[in-house]
């Protein structure tokens, strides 16, 4: 299959076909999915490691979730917000010490070997727990996985672990990889990390660095008649401005993860044949956060942190930086979370006079030049929006007499500066909320995290009360009691401001209207696309 290339001719032929299809009258809404076709998608990065069991991040999932499946996927209407994938049912023991998964029958790996509970046990114990960025916390007490038969896996925990947490973690953390491929040699250096083998609807075909990834249909997929597409091509378009033109030129059919700049959406939504979709990212909420280095004596003062919170006009940020495609934040859990969010937290209205008064009270009066003190501000470079918010924050701080000096770094240097060297006073970060505060949210506040762990509390913040609350919630089994504890957590974080939550945003897809079954689950862009189809 190595003779595959995207030639000008095939693109032209494909686009001519697409063009012709738009001329056909659209048949009503109850369409039956058609088989075949090639979906071309914009990819903005080429992850170094494509193994989602090791690197649980959206950049990796975007490609590899079609190849490697999880035990369950997020769902709009399924029980507990889940849809079965490799597991057909899951049940937690009352003592919180075990969870039993029943696995799907007749599933085969892409190389033809059968999928069994041994693969689940191997993935959980050898990869998720010791190696995975998120699994390290969630599965830290996982002691053993019993496999009484080929289709049953029983997770055994050393300490009571809330079933609610395990359930919420399934969509992102439970990618199952084949034991027979990973059991020999060093897992992190296994060649399958770059050419994944899974059970998913698509097989990894090839990757041409700087050009594209190609996935092809898995004919032996367990889903009836699925997948519909023959091929998925991830066209590498690292330049954010090129995705919009590629869509208009019909070179690609989908640009997910806001590959089209927000400022362009208004214009592009009027292009015939293109749709702007905000659905399908409900479980992938990013939070715009001001990270604070509490080692600075000024910032260790609660009044100063409150003043900064009052100085930020969240509505302006949502309106101007995000052009309305975001929501203002009240605390560490986003508003769109159905389980944990509470409005019952202290809030900080935009009030420059009050912010100035708080700073005066704290004893930092303005000098002759109108400045109270200087700070180093490091906006994360990953998103246009984080950089722009950095520019805004500098102005907002200037209004209350704090002179913020911007320091721009590339991604690697930013992560090192903030999370290893602590060479920052304020930083702008985009942590992700993953459906449960214990997965990647409490770590932003908790103390005692070693230096160098990215996206964690590296600001030297320590609050025994909050630490105790986090510890208690992590072993509370009753979902209602656990939810209450996290509401308390939100309240305390909003009151003591270890960090300042400014806004919550998700992504936008721009897609050709010939693509069917789009955005039909809360993690659609990173789900398996088995039911996605093309009208051609």
């Amino acid at each position, binding site marked *: 299959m190595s003779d595959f290339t995207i030639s000008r001719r095939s693109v032209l032929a494909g686009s001519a076909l697409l063009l012709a299809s738009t001329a056909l009258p659209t048949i009503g809404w109850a369409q039956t999915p058609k088989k075949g076709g090639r979906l071309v998608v914009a990819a903005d990065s080429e992850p170094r490691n494509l193994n989602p069991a090791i690197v649980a991040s959206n950049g990796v999932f975007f490609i590899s979730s079609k190849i490697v499946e999880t035990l369950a996927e997020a769902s709009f209407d399924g029980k507990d917000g889940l849809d079965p994938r490799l597991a057909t049912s899951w049940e937690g023991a009352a003592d919180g010490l075990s969870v039993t998964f029943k696995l799907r029958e007749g599933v085969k790996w892409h190389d033809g070997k059968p999928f069994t509970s041994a693969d689940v046990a191997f993935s959980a114990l050898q990869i998720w727990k010791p190696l995975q960025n998120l699994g390290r916390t969630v599965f830290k007490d996982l002691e053993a996985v019993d496999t009484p038969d080929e289709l049953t896996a029983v997770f055994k925990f050393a300490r009571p672990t809330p079933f609610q947490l395990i359930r919420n973690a399934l969509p992102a953390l439970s990618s199952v990889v084949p034991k027979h491929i990973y059991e020999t040699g060093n897992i992190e250096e296994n060649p399958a990390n770059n050419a994944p083998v899974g059970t998913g609807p698509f097989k990894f075909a090839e990757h041409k660095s700087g050009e594209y990834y190609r996935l092809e249909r898995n004919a032996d997929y367990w889903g009836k008649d699925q997948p519909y597409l023959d091929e998925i091509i991830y066209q590498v378009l690292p330049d*954010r*401005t090129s995705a*919009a033109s590629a869509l208009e030129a019909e070179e690609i059919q989908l640009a997910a993860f806001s590959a089209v*700049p927000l*400022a*362009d959406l*208004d*214009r592009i939504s009027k292009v015939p044949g293109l749709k702007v979709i905000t659905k399908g990212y409900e479980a992938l909420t990013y939070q715009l956060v001001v990270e604070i280095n509490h080692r600075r004596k000024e910032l260790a003062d609660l009044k100063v942190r409150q003043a900064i919170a009052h100085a930020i006009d969240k509505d302006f940020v949502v309106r*101007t*930086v995000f052009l309305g495609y975001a929501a203002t934040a009240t605390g560490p859990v986003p508003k769109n979370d159905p389980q944990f969010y509470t409005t019952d937290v202290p809030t900080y209205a935009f009030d420059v006079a009050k912010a100035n008064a708080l700073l005066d009270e704290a004893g930092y009066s303005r000098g002759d030049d109108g400045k109270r003190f200087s700070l180093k501000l490091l906006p994360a*470079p990953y998103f*246009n929006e984080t950089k*722009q918010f950095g*520019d*805004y924050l*500098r*102005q907002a701080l*200037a209004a209350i007499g704090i002179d913020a*000096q*911007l*320091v*721009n*770094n*590339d991604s690697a240097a930013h992560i090192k500066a903030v999370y290893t060297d602590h060479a920052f006073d304020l930083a702008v970060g985009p942590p992700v909320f993953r459906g449960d505060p214990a997965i990647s949210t409490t770590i932003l506040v908790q103390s005692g995290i070693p230096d160098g762990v990215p996206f964690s509390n590296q600001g030297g913040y320590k609050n025994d009360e909050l630490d105790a609350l986090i510890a208690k919630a992590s072993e509370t089994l009753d979902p209602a009691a656990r939810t209450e504890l996290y509401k308390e957590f939100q309240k305390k974080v909003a009151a003591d401001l270890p960090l300042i939550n400014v806004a919550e945003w998700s992504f936008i897809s721009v897609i050709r209207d010939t693509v069917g079954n789009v955005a039909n689950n809360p993690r659609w862009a990173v789900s398996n696309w088995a039911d996605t189809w093309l009208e051609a």
Partner: protein
Amino acid sequence: MSPLRRFLRTPEAIAGAIILVALFAMGLTAPLFFPGDPHAIAGPALLPPFQDWSLPLGTDRLGRDVLAALLHGARTSLAVGLAAAAAALAVGAVIGTLAGFAGGLVDEVLMRITDAFQTVPSFLLALAFVSVVGPSLGVVVTAIALGAWTGPARVARAEVLSIRERDFVAGARVIGMHPLEIALREVLPNALPPLLALSSVIVAAAILTEAALSFLGLGDPNRVTWGGMIAEGRAVLRTAPFLSIIPGVALVLTVLGVYLAGEGVVETAAVRRSLS
């Protein structure tokens, strides 16, 4: 005819001079017209030019005044261009003079170092330097000078090679002046004119390099730079092209002005030389 009048005879020199004077005026008056921070949010976001006369050139994505940014950007561009050129000329002149005057091993060593710097594209050198040390105005100036001193060094050396054989140099030797003193006080000033002719090219290149670095996000983020403005406008190129076009035009005019004025100076000097 005085050199100034001769300079003003050439039309391109006049054009260049006008642009430069306007530019300096812009840079110098920026703090008068727009006191305070040019980054301050002044109005609604993405206001097109010529809509609101208090914001004649419109606003950017955060509602910052484009005209204020343009004027303050002129300061940065000129400051970086002049400082980098001055540094490059100073370093180049001294190294070239020493190499040419000392000759022998010193000449060999200094010229091989110059060769080494010349083989690396100066923009790559600047890029590498800034990304390692971290962007700030001083670092950007140093980075640009680092790639620009080799030209002046070679010109100075060639000039010094002919000057050092002149009688006044021999005279200076006879009265017992220290060789270093002869090199720097007697020879160097006489080697300067051709170097100055080179300066306009260096200033223009320095302004462009600074803009390119800022465009790539390696400029000083706390200052307005035209390159940075173009880069920021790029995200909204389709909906608000003026955000990239305005600083782009300013950049083109500046480089053109510096170049034309430089040409005029060179021509004036050439005429004077042929007259004498």
